[in-house]
Structure formats: structure tokens, C-alpha cells
């Protein structure tokens, strides 16, 4: 059975095309999901892709969280469906309170596109099992509001419970608290990443193929479940 991974398209989603390609290259079947349909089409996992949903008007991700598709996605995620939010998708997951914290403007106040190193901190989640803890990956960062923030207590909890998924290694590009580049919920099925693994699935078009592991990880998790 080929795992079916849904990729949601909101108005203003941009990297949905890339996320579907990454799912395909990892060996899964990408399933397009439409924001206005409260229907997950029976998928085994969901990616909320990067972009500027609703033009980032009001606040990044703040409008997308109310989309009809989210009314299905939020309870499914709480019930264990693997969900990965990348960049704008991460912002949507924070706005939907599926993940703690928030993303704010980069410390330099400018959009930053850069090939960066991240370090896998927790390799026992639905999205990182194909990596080893401590492994460093080269992926793409491209965001204007990528600085992760949370209060001190939340940051301490995240560290204590293994909810820091990945950290920036070799320099913090945007002022994120504790160098956090991605977090995961306590159950390990809902993950948010500010960098883009889907842009690092082929050395021809990205800085490496290091990002493919996030997608192969979830395929394995789905088959095992």
C-alpha cells in the first residue's frame, strides 16, 4: 500500500507544488487538499505547505487556521494524524494551537533566503525517524517572519519534553529563541519547521537531498501504524 499524504492548498500557498513533489520522490502518493473543502480525503498524513496564505494579511497563518479544511484537520491531528507544517504551515499550526509558540519578524527585519544547517534534536517522531539525533542537515530557509518565540516556561518545557525537533546549527539566521528551527507536539505526530525540507530533496535543484528524510520518515510511520 502506498501511503497517501495530503498537501493543503490555501489561497496564497506557494510551496504546495514542491511538497507534493517531495512526497512523490519519497515514495508516497501526494493528494491535493483544497482549503474550502472540509474533507481530508482519507489521507494518512498531511503537509501544510509554505507560502503566504491569504497574503499573510492580519497575521501569518491567522486566517488560514479558520479554513474549512482545518475543521477536519485539527481534531484529526489531536487524534494522532501525522501533520507537518512548513514555514507558513508552521505559522498556521501555531495559530491553530496545535503547536506552542509563535513566529515573528526576523531579527534583521528583512526576508532571508539562505542555505542553512540544522541539527536534528529529536529523531523519534513521525517526521524524523529516518534521521539520527544530532545529525546535521543542509536545507533552505526562506522567510520574513521566521523568528520562533515562546515564553520562558514554554521553552523550558519544550526542551524538557523533547519537543524541540530541530535547531539552527552554525548561526541563528533570524533571532529564534534557543535557536529553535522546528518543534513537535508532545505526541510526536504534529511538527512545525521554519526551514524547507521540500526544497532539499534533489541536489540539482536544492543545496542537498537532506530534506527527503522528513518525508520518508512519515511514510514509515504511516505503514507501521
Amino acid at each position, binding site marked *: 500500500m502506498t501511503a497517501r499524504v495530503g498537501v493543503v492548498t490555501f*489561497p*496564497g500557498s*506557494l*510551496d504546495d*507544488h*514542491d511538497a507534493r*513533489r517531495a512526497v512523490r520522490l519519497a515514495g508516497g502518493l501526494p493528494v491535493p487538499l483544497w482549503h*474550502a473543502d472540509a474533507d481530508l480525503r482519507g489521507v494518512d498524513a498531511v503537509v501544510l505547505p*509554505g*507560502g*503566504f496564505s*491569504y*497574503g*499573510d*494579511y492580519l497575521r501569518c497563518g491567522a486566517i488560514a487556521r479558520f479554513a474549512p479544511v482545518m475543521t477536519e484537520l485539527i481534531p484529526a491531528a489531536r487524534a494522532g494524524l501525522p501533520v507537518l507544517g512548513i514555514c507558513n504551515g508552521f505559522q498556521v499550526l501555531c495559530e491553530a494551537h496545535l503547536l506552542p509558540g509563535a513566529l515573528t519578524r526576523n531579527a534583521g527585519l*528583512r*526576508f*532571508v*533566503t*539562505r542555505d542553512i544547517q540544522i541539527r536534528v534534536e529529536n529523531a523519534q517522531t513521525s517526521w524524523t525517524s529516518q534521521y539520527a539525533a544530532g545529525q546535521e542537515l543542509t536545507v*533552505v530557509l*526562506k522567510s*520574513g517572519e521566521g523568528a520562533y518565540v515562546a515564553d520562558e516556561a514554554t521553552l523550558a518545557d519544550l526542551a524538557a519534553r523533547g519537543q524541540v525537533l530541530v535547531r539552527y546549527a552554525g548561526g541563528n539566521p533570524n533571532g529564534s529563541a534557543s535557536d529553535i528551527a522546528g518543534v513537535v507536539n508532545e505526541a510526536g505526530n504534529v511538527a512545525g519547521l521554519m526551514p*524547507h525540507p*521540500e*526544497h532539499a*530533496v534533489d541536489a*540539482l*535543484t*536544492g543545496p542537498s537531498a537532506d530534506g527527503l528524510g522528513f518525508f520518508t520518515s512519515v511514510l514509515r510511520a504511516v505503514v507501521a501504524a
Partner: protein
Amino acid sequence: MSTDVAAQARAGQQAVPQDTVSVAAATPDRSQPYAALGLTAAEYRKIAELLGRRPTDAELAIYSVMWSEHCSYKSSRRHLRQFAEKAPPTDALLAGIGDNAGVVDIGQGYAVTFKIESHNHPSYVEPFQGAATGVGGIVRDILAMGARPVAVMDALRFGPADAPDTRRVLPGVVGGISFYGNCLGLPNIGGELAFDPCYAGNPLINALCVGVLRHADLKRAVATGTGNQVILFGSRTGPDGIGGASVLASASFGASASTGGRGEGAKRPSVQVGDPFMEKLLVECCLELYAADLVVGIQDLGAAGVACATTELAAGGKSGMTVRLDAVPLRDASLGPAEILMSESQERMMAIVTPADASRFLAICARWEVPAMVIGEVTDTGRLEMTWHGERVVDIPPGTAADDGPVYDRPARRPDGQDALAADDPARLARPSGPARGTGLRATLLALLAAPDAADKTWVTEQYDRYVRGDTVLAMPHDAGVIRVDEATGLGVALATDGNGRYCLLDPYAGTQLALAEAYRNVAATGARPLAVTNCLNFGSPEDPAVMWQFTEAVRGLADGCLALGVPVTGGNVSFYNQTGADAIQPTPVIGVLGVHDDVRRRLSSAFGQSEASLMLLGETRTELGGSLWARVQHGHLGGRPPAVDLAAEQALAQVLVTAAGRGLLAAAHDLSDGGLGAALAESCLAGGVGATVTLPGDDFTFLFSESASRALVAVVPGREASFTTLCAEAGVPAATIGTTGGSTLEVAGSFSVSLEELGRAHRGTLPALFG
């Protein structure tokens, strides 16, 4: 702008009767503000002659924008004909000059459309929105051809890098491009960044877009089929940018472009405001409409808005059209017919749709939450007729506005100082010499690499998304941007833009050919076969005979060059009036060349990525320093002759690069241009993080800094040196082995050595130090 017409139109809604066709016929002597709208008395008389009466206010609005320099090309048109007259024989062109953008066959059933356009004047008035809407406008041009836009590039020129006003304009422009392009989801794959005092009041913001389509998907801007519906869709129409085409890009720019509040006769912003989110929806919506085959004809709304789209569609279809201007969805209910016609509100398109398909068309727009409205119908009358609440306010033959604008043969005269400029040879300038010669050459190289024109551009390019859509194979800082078109076969395209105002000032004919040759060489350096050309011709006032001479020489040079290289001009854009007072910018034609990769996996980058590769210098190096980066940076000098043009040598070099890339003989290739071999070596070392040791085959100063054209630096795959040398010999391309890659320094034997760390500091520090 201060449009009395606009004020009258607004007032007219309340009290004064609308200026209808019958009112116009009955009041032949009423005075009209044609001069404030940028028309001359003779042009105004010609309109009256064409119509057999004075125009209505709404008709005057149409003619004023359609006959503006920006829309009508009235000063350039007779010269631009050369691009067609001298076009090289080609069967690659599916659509050409006159369409929204040229369309080129790249094989496997795919076609590519690309075009570059200026947004110079708006970007000086309001850098952020001016540059943002420049991106939006060119993207809609590409979309209107039936293509999916796949990448953008920007050629930017500013005043001195350290001037206070540059710190206002440059960050705003870059921020605007970043905001719009990133939010729209198009990778930005390259372009140019240059500085010169001549651009201080006249920055050049040239935006290029490239799109991909299947041959069968090609769309045309034609209104055909009597009874077909005219649908306006996208953003609602507002009061922004009214008269932008006639005011901003006209001689009266300085006097009229101020902004102000609302109210009777108030001046309004002539720069439009962009909404990239709506543009993204519009792109996806259009592509779905095309896929469902619901579009008979389509036109984007850019300069001159509804006036331009309706007249061009009707003229293109050799048909007529009725339009209900009161049906246009508005953001500001107080707008009158003349304002609606001239508004340059962004993110709008106009389509011609059969009555049977109209409801499906509107349903797709609704799915993408794009406002859409049927505002008229195609007729067979040959007249463009518009009504405002039932009253006829426009009744014209559309071709008179779209095609029959005035054509001027402006006087051109070679400037008096041209000979003196050519005689001021840089040979007299001091060069490093004596015992400290090596140290001097080293310092010169570091100074050139740190000069704002040649410095690392990461500060700018890092603000652009180059990865979105996942098909970017090469982007800055490489010689050309490369985009994959077909994932299965690896078919792709390469694009480069180049311009050099210094060369063009010294000799506009040769300088334009050098810009063409450099873009052609840049594309070939990635291994792509150059195929077609677009251009953005940035000049001062055409009313100045010296500027007109520069323009005619540049056009002649480009047409002759394209013929010699066998690459047709597919379209382009002219931007005049880039001048402050009597001071025109340097003539700055920016040339874009498109090439094809049969398989992008064979592309070459400019980075030295491996050690122990032989370095070879291709082409002939002469002492050519006129207009060079060295003369400018080290001596503030601009004079003499630009490098000699040899287009046959250029073609042979490109053939070698393309063939070698296809056969896998090369590890890297970098074209030689500004800063010569010295700059190229340093850039390739820094891009790949691998050093090099070279022994120069002659005078080291000349070999390092001369800017002779038709040259490239290549790193040969170890073991393939003999094959490559044979290839060069067969093509008649001079090739000299000058060293090898490796280590962490750039060493010029017998002269100097410099660590990559020090080179990098010089190269990368400049823009962050200037712009924060």
C-alpha cells in the same frame, strides 16, 4: 496627476451633464485640457480629425494614454522596425513583436515566453510600490500569452552607492521586489546591480519574467466572435495610477507627479499599489481557465488600464466592442468614466469569452475568489462604443487609438563631445609598476572586487526566494539563471540580462552589441544554446537630438548584432525621459538572452567546485580598458573605445561551451566581462570555495584587468583536457592553459597571492556596510 478631466468627471456625476458623444458634437469649441494630459496641439487636432468632432472627455482620456510615449512608441517605432527587417531566419518564433511577449519554441511541444520591461519612473517616486508593481506588470504580460510564469529577474541601476538618496531608493526597490515576487511564488533567478551618478535621479528598474506553455495553449489579445462577452476580472478598479503612462513616463514628469489628498481637483498618487496575493490568485485562476479552454482572447491591464485593454483587444480582433463603464467593479464609487478608463489599478485582466462559457468562466473566478464582471460584448461594427449609465461617452474606431498613434522622426545628431570622449584613451592612466608591481596588482584586484558594481550581491539576492517551485537549477551569482521545464527529460532554459552604460556612452552601437554579446555568452557559459532576445532600452529624452542619436545607434547595433548571431528579437520595451534637467542617463540598453538546455543536468556553474582541474582561458586578450571597471574604480575615468566586437568569435566561443557542456568536458565555466580575468578568477574561487594557481601568458596587468570580449574562463574535467583542446582548435577558439584549481588561495605566479578569506572579506563586505 492634475486631471481636469477627472475633476470634471467627478463633478459631472452630481451636477454638470456628462460629456457625451452628442454633447461633444454640439459643443465643438469647448476647451479641453489636452496639454495637461500630455498631448500636443497637433495630436489633439489629429484626434478631432479622426473622429470628425472633438473627443469627449472619456475619449480624450483614451487617446492621451494610448498615444503616450509609453504606450505608442511614437518616438521609437520607426527605428524598432529594424528588429523585424533584420530578423535572422528562424522557425522558433511562435509569437513576436507586437504581442504581449514573444513566444519561442524550445522543443518537446514546449514554448517559452519572456519579456523585460521598465518601471523606472514609478520606482523613483515610490521605490517599494514602484518596483513591486513592475514585477506584477511583467508577470501579467507573460500570463496573458497563455503561459505559467516560472521565474523573474531584475536589472537594477542606481545612483552612487554611498549617496543618501540611494539609501532611500535601493532598499525600497529591493524590498518591493522581494515582497511582491516572494508572495507571488516566483523564483528570482538573477539580474544585475550597478551604480553610477547618472542614475541618481533616474534609477533603472527593469523586470524580466519568463513563462512556460504548451504550443497549443498560446493565447492572443484579440476580441473576436460577435456576441462574445467581455469580462473584466481581478482587483476592483480604484483611483490609483490614473494617467501613470502619460504622466510618469513623459516629459512633464517632474512637474506633475506630486501626490496629495482627495477632493475636488486634488492630485492623486500616480504610482499604483500592488497586491501580490491577488496576483497569485489571478495566475492560478487564469491557468485553470486556460486548461478548461474557456478563453477566446485575453489581455492584461497594465499601463492605461481599461482604455488600453479594450482598444487593443478590439483592434487586434478587427472587430467592435460595446462596454458599459458603469459595470466596472469599483473600489471608489466616486470614479467617473475618464478615471475608470485611465486607472492603472493592478492585478486585473480582461478576457473574451463565448456566451455559452461565461457561467463556467465566472464559476472558476469565484472558486479562486477573484472578482469578475461581464462589462461588454464583441460587435461587428468596427467601433469601440462605451456607455455610462446609458449615455454614450465613447464611440471611436479602436485602431485609431491602438495602432494609428503619431509616429515621430525625431532629429538625431552625434553629440559634439563624442570624438573627444573617444580620444581620451585610458592608456595614459597609471598602472602598478616597479618593484611593488605585484603588491599593486593585488591591491587593484581587491579594490575592484570591493567596488559596489562588482561586489558580492548577496545583500540583495538573499531577500529574494530563488527556490520556490523547485525547478531552479542555477541562480545568482552564476552567469545565468537556469530553470528546469520538464522534470522527466531535463529540458530547461537559461536566461541572462546585461547592460553597460559606460560602453554605450563611448559607442552606443558597439556598446549595445557588447551587452548582447555578454548576455549571449552568459547563457552559453551555462551550456545553453542561445535562442532569442528581449530588450529594455533605457534612454534620456528623445527630444534631445544627442539622445536620439544614441538611441538610433543602439537599435541599429542590436538589430545588426542579432542578425549576425542568429538570435531574433522577440519583443521589448523602450523607456525614454530618464533624465534630470538637461542631464540624460548613459544610454543603457539592457539585453536579455534566452537559451535552451536539452538536459539541465548537464549545466555548468561558475563555481570552482573541485581541485586539480586545469584552468583554460578561451578567446583573445587585447589591451582594452576603455570604459573598464579598472579605469572607473582606480581612476574615475571614462573615455576611449569600448572593447572590440567580434560576433563571429562570440558564436564560436558559445559553440565550444555548449558542445563541451553536452559532452561533460567541463567542471566550471565563467564568462569574462567587468573586471576581466582577475574578477572572474576571484568570483569562481569564492563561489566554490576552492582556490587556484595561475601563470598568465603575457603582461599580467593586461591579462588580469582588460575587458576584451568573446572570452571565458573554464575548468576542465581532469582527463578531458585533450578532447577539450581539440574542440577549441576545431572551432578556431584560442585556448591557453593558465593553471589549476586547488588550495585556499588565489595565486598569480610571479606576481601575488591572496587568500580566499581576504578576497571574500573584500568582496562580501561592501553592500552590508552600505545598506546595513
